[in-house]
Structure formats: C-alpha cells, structure tokens
C-alpha cells in the first residue's frame, strides 16, 4: 500500500485521469496498492504510514524499467557532433544574417564558425557523426537522434531547470522524481533516483537539479559517488565498527518496539523502526553496488577505465549499469561540472572544449550502450544523451571559435527502452541555428521518457497550489512518435 501522509496535498489522482488505453487490471492493481480502498490513507495526521516508494504498477505496459540520463552539462554543440551541416563547408568567417539568442542577448547577424571536425557515415543507417565520437558512432543503429529539440531558455540557470524539471522557474520536481513518484522503487536498499556528478563540481543551481520541489523529499535525487562513501553519511564514523552499530541498533529497536507497543495503531513508528534496518542494509548494498572488483578486466577496459582520460566517466557509466541491474529507476550522470570550460559551455574555443569533453566520454558512453546490449538490458533501459541546449552556428566573439548558447534548435539522442534505433527525426536549418522541421520541445522528450516508463505524461499529476501539476505542463503533450 502506498499513499503517504502528504499533508493532504496529494492523492495519486493521476490514475483517474489516465485516458484511453488504461487497462482495467492496471487500475485495479494501482488502486489497491494506492490504498484507494483504505479510508485511512489521506491525512497528515494519519497514523497509518505507507511506504511512498513501494513499487507501483504503471499506467500501461512499460518499455523501459530504468532511465540513464547522460547529461552533457553546458550545452554540447549539435553541429559539431551529430547534426551534420555540409552546407556550411567553406563558409568559415562569413558574416551572415541569422537570428540568435544566447547569454549575449539577441543578435541578427553573426560570423560563421565552420565545424572543426570531419564527419563520416556509420552503421546500417548511414548516420553522419563527427570525429568527436568515433566510439558512439559505432552504436548509431541503436540510437534515435532528435535534431529539432527546442527549449524555453538559452540561459544555463533556467535551461537546466527546464531540462530537469520542465519549468524555467525553480521549485518543481525533477524528471527522476516524477518517475519514482509514478513507479516507486524496486530496490528499497538503494535510492530510486541517483545522481552522479562530474569531478569538477556540480552543475549551476546545485541541488535544484535533483530536487523533488513541492513533492516530499522521498522523491529527490541522491548523490552517489564512485569514490569514498558512495552515499553521504553511509559509512560509520571512525572508531565505530559495523558490529558496534548493530549493537546500538538492536538496543534502539528494543526500546522503540516497547514504545510502539502501546501505540500499535501508529504505523509511522513501525516505519521509522524499519528505516533503520533499511539504512543498515543500505550500508551493505550501496558499497556492493559500487564495487568494481566484481567486474572483469575486460569490462573495465571496455569502459575505458584503463585510461586516465576516460577513467572517471567510464566508472560512472559502469556504475550506472550496475545500478540498473539493482533496480534503480533513474540515474543521471553529469559530464562536466562547475563553470565555463569545465563543462561543455564552449564560449571561447569550441575545438579545445569539445575535444576535451568528448574525449572523456565517447568511449564510456559507447561501452555503456554495448554492455547493456550484450547483457540484453538495453531493451529495458532508456539511455538519454544531451545537454540543456545546443550552440550557435556563429561565433560569440569577434575573434575565436567560441559559440554561444542556442535553445532554438539542438540535438539529443535516446537509445534502448523501446526507442527505435538508427533513426533521425527533425531537422534544423542549413546552419543549425533553429529547428525547422518537426520541432520538439523539451516537454516532448519528457513525455517520451514517461511514456516509455509506462506512465501517461498527461495523466501523471500531483496536486499542489490548487492545481494538478504535471511534468509536461498544461498542454496535452504527445511523446515523440517517430522514435518509439
């Protein structure tokens, strides 16, 4: 049973709103699990605690069980990676009329910066990929490229919030929160929404990028680290052994049980007793999840863990696979952190910046796709690659090859989890300055993710502030049909 004491603010009414295609059996199951038959489940003061993260039955049969979001923070340039623009060839430094909007404001003119990389065709589908991604290029037949993404903001702060929470204002739950809210967790020994940061630092706005916003903290992302204690405060303090802690926990449990004994109808107390047992188990399971020694040298090599360049991202990609194996719903990996060239934010020198970040991630990303595939996990795992926006075809400054932000058109790709391979949808204009053919707003991407996870994007809602809030907002939003 679920439905916690959400201060009376929410009942999982989304299930009522799911439209056609909502199978009766699913409804039935969901209702039971949601405590809809229980009259006890609806109050902040309710003594009946129910685990809000208990696994829930989705709206319809899911294609994916888990999501791995490879977040290329800072905004990778689409025309230098996967959005091939042969028409720009030979036009370097030409000044042209083009409308752009980035951190430098609106401009009507700019100086073309031709891509610094060669493109080649790969795979059965013949996808053009730049030399930045020789490894990922070998996976194109498993990938669906969306070249016509658009977002509401070309400014990092609001754009990050948009990509992660669907809004340009802060205070809304993130995609990972929604997925866990809708589906619960399959493994109570690990968090359901895991974030792994770049060694250079977090993204701007920090925790707002994995916040559960107006939802309870149960659904917020947990930072997992590949070095040190994987989860904050997971390890016992120095001088405290695990056996010692068990001793303390036993005494705690005894006293708590006696206390709860005379308050037997208050199941919150029992839940809190249980949370200590879960924490104790987590201390065992989380380190096990990050224990790379269980992986063969061959696998580690595949992920590039034998080279300093790719060691970090390779580790995190491998960790992502291990977490998926352990039932974690939503995993977000940041490539790049901090500010400026510590991430994909190539304002001054596109070549240097993108060579660096692509070089760190290309092999690990490809390894993740291949590894998931060879283990027959790719079909259940939705992998997303992209940043909060793309970059402009023209130069930001009078000199140099830096590109400003571009939310008018950019590329993201998805693989696995029921996504078609070897397809490319939508286009930008011949410069890549804006989406022209079938533009897809970020909401469409979010809708696609929810859809593949078995959730109705227009039905999954949470009552807050007098409104049924939704990840995809007010308009009816369709997933991207061409890639499903």
């Amino acid at each position: 049973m679920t439905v916690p004491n959400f201060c009376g603010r929410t009942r999982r009414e989304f299930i009522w709103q799911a439209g056609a295609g909502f199978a009766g059996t699913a409804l039935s199951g969901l209702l039971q699990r949601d405590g809809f038959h229980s009259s006890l489940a609806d109050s902040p003061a309710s003594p009946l605690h129910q685990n809000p993260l208990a696994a829930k039955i989705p709206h319809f049969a899911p294609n994916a069980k888990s999501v791995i979001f490879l977040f290329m923070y800072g905004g990778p340039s689409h025309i230098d990676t996967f959005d091939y623009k042969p028409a720009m060839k030979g036009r370097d430094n030409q000044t042209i009329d083009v409308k752009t909007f980035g951190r430098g404001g609106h401009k009507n003119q700019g100086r073309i910066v031709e891509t610094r990389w060669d493109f080649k065709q790969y795979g059965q589908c013949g996808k053009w990929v730049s030399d930045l991604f020789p490894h990922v290029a070998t996976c194109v037949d498993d990938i669906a490229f969306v070249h016509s993404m658009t977002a509401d903001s070309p400014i990092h702060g609001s754009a990050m919030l948009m990509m992660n929470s669907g809004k340009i204002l802060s205070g809304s739950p993130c995609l990972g929160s929604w997925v866990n809210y809708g589906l619960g967790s399959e493994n109570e020994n690990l968090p359901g929404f895991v974030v792994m940061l770049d060694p250079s630092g977090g993204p701007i706005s920090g925790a707002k990028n994995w916040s559960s916003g107006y939802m309870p903290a149960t659904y917020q992302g947990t930072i997992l680290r590949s070095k040190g204690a994987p989860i904050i405060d997971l390890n016992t303090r120095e001088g405290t052994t695990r056996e010692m802690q068990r001793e303390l926990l036993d005494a705690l449990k005894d006293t708590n049980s006696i206390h709860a004994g005379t308050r037997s109808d208050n199941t919150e107390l029992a839940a809190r007793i249980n949370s200590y047992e879960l924490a104790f188990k987590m201390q065992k399971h989380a380190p096990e999840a990050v224990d790379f020694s269980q992986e063969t040298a061959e696998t580690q090599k595949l992920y590039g863990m034998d080279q300093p360049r790719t060691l970090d991202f390779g580790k995190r990609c491998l960790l992502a696979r291990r977490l998926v194996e352990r039932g974690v719903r939503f995993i977000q990996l940041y490539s790049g952190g901090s500010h400026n060239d510590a991430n994909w934010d190539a304002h001054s020198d596109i070549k240097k910046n993108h060579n660096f970040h692509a070089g760190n991630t290309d092999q690990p990303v490809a390894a993740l796709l291949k590894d998931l595939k060879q283990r027959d996990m790719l079909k259940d795992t939705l992998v997303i690659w992209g940043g909060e926006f793309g970059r402009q075809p023209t130069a930001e400054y009078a000199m140099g090859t830096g590109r400003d932000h571009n939310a008018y058109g950019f590329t993201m790709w998805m693989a696995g989890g029921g996504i078609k391979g070897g397809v490319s949808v939508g286009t930008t204009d011949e410069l890549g300055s804006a989406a022209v053919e079938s533009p897809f707003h970020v909401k469409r991407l979010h809708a696609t993710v929810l859809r593949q996870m078995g959730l109705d994007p227009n039905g999954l809602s949470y009552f807050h502030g007098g409104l049924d809030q939704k990840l995809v907002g007010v308009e009816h939003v369709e997933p991207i049909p061409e890639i499903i």
Partner: protein
Amino acid sequence: MIPIQEQTVQKVAKACFPCKPLNPTRNANCRASTRLSRHAAVVRHLIFAAPSLHVLVMAVLLLSSSTAIAQPPEPVDFGRQIQPILARRCYACHGPDKAEGDLRFNRKETVFSALKSGKLAVVPHDLSGSELIRRVTSTDDSDRMPPEGPPLTPSQIGLMKTWIEQGADWKEHWAFDAPRSQPLPTVKNERWVKSPIDAFVLSKLESRGLNPAPPAEKAALLRRVAFDLTGLPPTLDELKSFLGDESPGAYEIVVDRLLQSEHFGEHQARHWLDVVRYADTNSFERDGPKPNAWRYRDYVIRSFNRDKPYDRFIKEQLAGDELPDGGNDGLIATGFYRLGQWDDEPADRLLAGYDVLDDIITTTAQGFLGLTVNCARCHDHKIDPVPQRDYYSLLAFFKGVTPNGNPNPQVERPVFETDAEKVDYDAAMKAHKDKLRNFQATITAIEMDFRKRVGSTGTVSDAVDLCELRYRFYRDSWESLPNFENLKPETVGKLDGGFFDLSPATRETSFGFVFEGTLVVPVDGDYEFSLDSDDGSRLTVAGAQVVLYDGIHSIGQPRSGKISLKQGPTPIRLDYFQGVGGKGLTVTWSGPGFERKLLSEPNDNRDASARRRKHRKEFESLIASKGPTVLGASIYEEYKSFVHQLEELRNHKVEPPSALCVTESGPNPPETMLLKRGNPQSPGEKVVPAFLTILGGDAAVIPPAAASATTSGRRTALANWIASSTNRLTARVMVNRIWQHHFGRGIVRSPNNFGLLGDPPTHLELLDWLAIDFMQGSNFTEGGNSSFSGEPWSIKRMHKQIVMSGTYRMSSRTASDAASAKDGSRSTSLSDAIKVDPLNNLFWRHDMRRLSAEEVRDSILTVSGQFNSKMYGPGVFPEISDEVKAGQSVPGSGWSDSSPEDQVRRSVYVQVKRSMVLPILSDFDFADTDSSCAARFTTTQPTQALGMLNGKLLNEQAVAFARRLRKEAGTDVYQQVSLGCRLALEREPDESMIRRSLQLIDALKTKHGLGVEKALEQFCLMIFNLNEFVYLD
C-alpha cells in the same frame, strides 16, 4: 452519515479539466487534458455530453461497506458532501468556465430549472425525474456521465440520491459566506467541557457515539505544549515543578510562561516563514543573497513575541511603507514582496516580471485568504468562482511594485531603530567624507609641492578627475536605457585610466555599461557636463541626473546640463547602451577655471589613457625614489601613510542598516491589462484594482496619491480589505493555521486552499466560532487571570484559547491502551474509534506528531547542552560537509561556516539558501522555499537514519551530551543513564529502559572494547535516535 463515505468523497479524483494552451511558466500546469481526448472532444454537444470510449472497471471502486456502522441517514450536507463531487467531476463541462447544454453546477438556477433539452438536472424528492441520477448511473457508456475518467463511485451516487430524496438542499460553498455566529452546542457529558471549543468537539463525538480519550499524562502534556508553543523541550526544572504542582491552575501557569517566552516568537515565526516562502537567497544560477532578508525574519519573531494584532501584522507586510505610523517595522515587513525566487537573468524579461507578480499574488491569496487565485492567471478558475478578471484586478494592486534587483535603493531602504542611530549614521557618513576629502587634499598638496621642487612637468591634466572608477558590462539588445540594477552584468571591473571607457566591451553591438566612480571636484562652484553618445546614455552626479540622452541615435549633437557641486570627492555614474550600428561616447566637463575637460576616453587618441597611466606610474616611481630626499624623510613617510590610509578609507564603506523592502515606481502605476491566456504578449481589456468578486469585493476606492508620493496607495487599500473583520476568510484562515500547529492538521486540512478543491472543514461551526472569537477578542476567563484577554486579533490569546481546551489536552492514546485513564470517563475502545473515525476527523484523541526539522535539531542541541539561545541577526552557517558542497558548481559558494558559537544557534537563524538547505533540516522535510508551504511533509527515509547515526552533527552532539551527563550526574553510569533519559525524554525513565541502556553500554565495553566514555557517547547517540525523542504523544 457514514464516515467511510465521507472519506471516499474526498478521495475522488480531482477532475482534470481541459486547459487551453497557455504561456506562463509558473502555472503552466493546470489540470489538463486527457479528458479532451480525441474521441470525446468531437461529440460533446448535448447536455451530459458524449460518451468516452474507454471502460473502466467499476468493481474496483466498490467500497467495502462492512466497516461502516449502520445508522439512519443523516441529512446530507451539500457543501461538504455533494459540491466537492460536482466540482471535481462535473465542473469541467458544467461549471464556472463552461456550460454545456446551459447547465452549470455552480449555479443553482440552472440545476433546478428546465434546460435546453427540456430536462431537469435535479428535481427535489424525485430521483426518477432527476436527469443527473439517470446519467451518472447509466450503464450505457455513451450515455453515462462523466464522459471521461471512471464513473462516480456507488457511494457518491448514493450520497447524491440521498441528497435529492431529502429535498436537494442547496447552499453555496461554505468559505464564501461570512463566518456565522455559533451558539455553543449542548452536550451530554458537560463535565468534560473546559472551553467552548470542547462543546463543539464533544457534541460531534457524542452524535457519533464516541467518547473523547482521557487526558494526557502530565509529562506528555508538558512536552506537547512546550514544543507546540516554543518548539523546544521543557527543562527538568519545569517538569519537576509542573509534576509537583497539583493545583488546578498548574497547567495555565505553564501555558502563560510559554506564551511569554521569547522562544514562542521564534517557533511561531518559522510557521509563518513557511507560508511566505521565506529564504535568504534568490535561487537560479547565482542563488545570490537577498540583502537584509533576515530583518524580515526578525520582524516576524518580534511581532509574535509582542503579540502584534494579526490585522496589523497583515497591514504591515502588505503596505507597511504606506502606513502613516509604519516606522521601521512597516518598512521591514514589506520584505514580504521580495522573498520569492528571482531569476536575475531570465530568458524572457517581460514574462519573468509577471512571474514575480504571480508569486506575490499566489502568496498573498493563499497565505492570507486561503484561495488559489493563482489558478485564474490564464483563464477563469476552473473550480472556484474566481474569474480571470479578478486575478488581474488583484495584480493591479501590485502593478507599481518595482522589480526585484540586486542590492540597491530599489529593494533596500535605510532603517534606524532610533533617531540617535540616524544621527550617528549621518555623522559617521559626514566624517567619512570629510576624511576622504582631507586626505585627498593633503596628498594633492604634497604632490604639488614635490612637483615644484623637482621641476616636474606634470600639469593639472595629470591630476585624476575620476577615481575609483568601476564598470559593469552587460550584453543584450535595447532601444532605450534599461534599469541595469535588474540585470546581471556579464563582467565587472576597474578602470585605471581615469576615463569612462568602452573598451572592455567584448562585442561591437548590443551591449551596455554602468560606470560608477568618484569625481574629484576641485572647488565649490557651478559645473557643466556635456554628453554625446551612440546610442543612449545618462549622467548622474552627486545622486542627481545631470544629462539624459536616451534612445537610439548617433554622435554629433551633444546634450549638456549644469549642477552646483561642493569641493571634494563626489559620486558620479554613467549609464550607457549600444543598440545598433556604431558606438561612441564623449563626456566632458567645464567649471571654474577649466573648459571641456574630457571625462571619457579620447576618441581621437586611443593611447591617451595609456599615456596618462604611464605618466602617473612614472610620477609614482619618481616620488618613491626622490621623495625622501626632496620632501624629507618624515614628510615622505607621512605622505605614504596618507596614500595608504586613503586607499583603506575608500574600501571601507559606511553603510546604514537597511531593510529589504518594497518600493513603487511612483504615485501612478502603469495601466494593468488582463493578459489573454496569461500571455504578456496578448494584453486584453484594461482592469483597475478591485477585490475578489466572490468575497463581495468591488473596485477599490483609492484616494489619489500626491504627485510627490513615492507610492500609489493601492496596497494600503488591499491590506485594509484583507485585514478587516468583514473579510470572510482572513480570520478563518489564520485560526486554522494556529489550530493546525497544535493538532497536526487544520480544521480545514488544506490551510492554503479553502476553495472547492480544498478539504472541507471537519468542524465548520468551531472554525467560525474561533474566527469570530479571534476578531472580537471576547474574554476567555478560565482561571480568571488570563494574560491576553480582550485583545482583538490577538494571536497569543488564540493559542491560549486552544491549548487550554480539554480537546487539546487529550491523550494520544485511548483508555484501552493508556493505562492511566484517571477520570474514568467513558472512553471508546481504540478499535471502535478507529472503525468509526479512522482519520480522527472528529478529534476523539490527540494525534501524535513527529517533530519538525527545526525541532529535531534544536532539541538535540538543547539536550546536549550546546544550544546557544542568542536571538536575531544575520543568518548563521552551521558546517556543511564537503561532500554536500560538492553538489554546488562552485563548492562552498555562499556558505562559509560560522563561528562555533553561532553554529549551535537556533534553526530559525540558519541561513536559508534555496539551492542548499542545511542537510539535517532538509532530511527532516524542511519547507520547499519556492512557493508558499502550507504544511510540512513527514517522510520517513533511510537517509534520515544514516544522518542520525553517522552524521558529524549527531556524533558531535552525542559526545557533548555524554560530557554533560558526566558533569551533571557524576561517574555513576546508572545516574548518567537515568539523567540522559530524563533530559531527552522529559519523563522519569522506567527501570527497564535504564536496564536496556546499561546493557548496551556494557555490551559496547565488553564485546566491542569501548572505553567508558565512548560507550556512554554511543548511548547518547542511541537516545537521539529514539522514536520517543522525535515524536510527541
């Protein structure tokens, strides 16, 4: 009435209403859209429109009736039982926003009269004549209502049938009527009634065959009331004296003491800070600090401690700056307007401006009125009778409010506690300026002397006119000068050349500059400034605008302006923007003895400032090498010291104490237009400030403001309307909040939403009685010596009213499991009570509650003996681990650890950084700061346990607690453990508790080899983790 059915009604889905595509960001999430699915949309034209094609399994919605206790049907309450069903399931097509087939379930006349189709939706006493019943019970999918979503549940249909059979009594939504004066209900068990509150509660219990739980044990009651009023545990002395005082007035003495405690204000303030989305920072990329927000927090604490009447409290926050006797409190209180999130670099500035206003409207309407007016930003409210026009009429009250900004006079005003403080500040400011002038004069004199003696060729032009010159560079396109204070500069820097200089620009077009520095005025006199620019510019000297040359234009026709200046350093500022085409800037000044000296980088000679810099450097090295001999060692040393001191002085700013506050653009705000679909690009009809129509509001009468006024007076009109005893919601909403924090939930469980989608009150009559009592301040005389009697809108009095009631003093357990039911009252068994009223809607016992995040942290610090009770002042920064800070893009940014003493201050003083909340607070469900938080969550998660077991704070406090026990209980471990239990749990521990604790210590020593001290520390850690420690009975 069947209790289970009531619950079901509440649990029915809030219908999803089709919302049109909209633009705004905040609310862009109204109920939408699957209902407008392809199939359904086409065929809906008849009354009780078309079918939806999907079938839902009805059986699963069947309610087990076995738990319901059979009783004759009570009268169905339309407002509480029927209207919510209609609102949630029918209003989408037959409500305020839409009237398919001319039927509106929010309008009585359409429900009871013949519709287009000739049918009647409801015929009182006639089920078969009521089309409503036929349609909701139809087994034909194409005929059944509602067309989308699951059918109504059998219990809902049952309620509707009963309602019609009983005559279909129709009342408007309770919250939109004024509170009604309520006679006290009669009860059987009169002995139980300690206050009027009890009569209301008991009469309901008796009508359902329930008895109240016995009174709480004294220790439990003390702990409860201490936390509820002050957020802190009682001390052992307080426990002892209460347990020892058998007199009838013992409890009231405790209550009065707690109400007088300064901690009362701190605790109650935190509840209010949740409602007004208080934070110390702005969120978004920089998450920069809001200057002086903490003064607002302190203002709230002081207001509660001084028992400021609630009506005054409202007026100060909404319009304290306009109150004739507003004073500093009035100014500081308007920080209310500035507390929300603010993006200093929005993608769409116009929309962002409306988002900020929306945040103010949302907080005002939900916070003071319990109405989700925010739902009407894009269209008429789908459920509540709030037309879109009302939203914009409300917005008109705030239309003059200046945008948020970085620290500047637009969001900050000086506040002086006393006149003397102001005098002191003025004196300090003058002294500072005098000092600067004197140093500069002395230095110049020595330099002149030096030049003379060495025969330097230096001329007046070497003397710097502009010093301390700094620039802020902006990148964007404008057609006229923007208010740069609202924008985020791309870069900032210093200009050494002594000229206004465009060369830091990183591009040729679409940029702007603000230059600020000091103009060295040689003598008192009249000066003329000339300004030529491509494009617009504005020159401000000594705080006065001297030349404005705005708009897009080219160079060649300079503008000029005159001003009288005093000798000495004078602030100067130049705003400039480049829109399209070329750029250019020439600023000169003329004055006594000189003509048209350049203040800007000479256009014809780009090396001039470099030359000037070079000259200055040469001069500096010259005086450094020859100064000691030419001037004499002592004078040169003096000179050096003056130069150094001048530099120091310039870095040291004399700043007045300032408040984060509201300002307006002037006496006449811009017009307000209704925005179609909430889109700022689609202005519709003009609206004027007007109150909500559903609350009987009309256009506001606002006296015309004087031309010299700095504000419009509109906010005062709004404040007076809200803070009025004729407002139907204000008092109810506040007493409900006060109630909420004593019982864990409001009488209305949705404290920010009294509308149709909110939860109906469990005790409407009680709510109304409390509201009227609150506004009237009638006497409450238990014990005859109440400290707060008679005050209208007295918050302390309302707290006392509530905590003195027998209802509040009930045990959280029933007689069957609370062994000590002393008064032997007829108590219902737990299982019976749970069966009849599982949610405790009727208050048959007191609900247990977990401590809030702040209470958890504060009581750990109190028990360990580390608590620092120092009050007020800027936010403090308890240590946050590097692991947590690693989540920031610049780890540690905006968070430098406070001194050890400040780190153990009360949680209400901890800096609220939107993007990084102190972990122990966020772990225990701190409020989301980005919108008004009506009620905290209570989550239980393993991560809480990890922090409580392994976190640094907990382990440090366990060590401190153990130290305290050794100090206060001596070396005897039994005494240590016994004291530990008493301190942490505020009760006498039973022997078994002590025995188990001793066993733990023993095991840690013998089995795990811990020393005596370490073992005691582990015991202390265990105590902090007990359920009993974090839960109140």
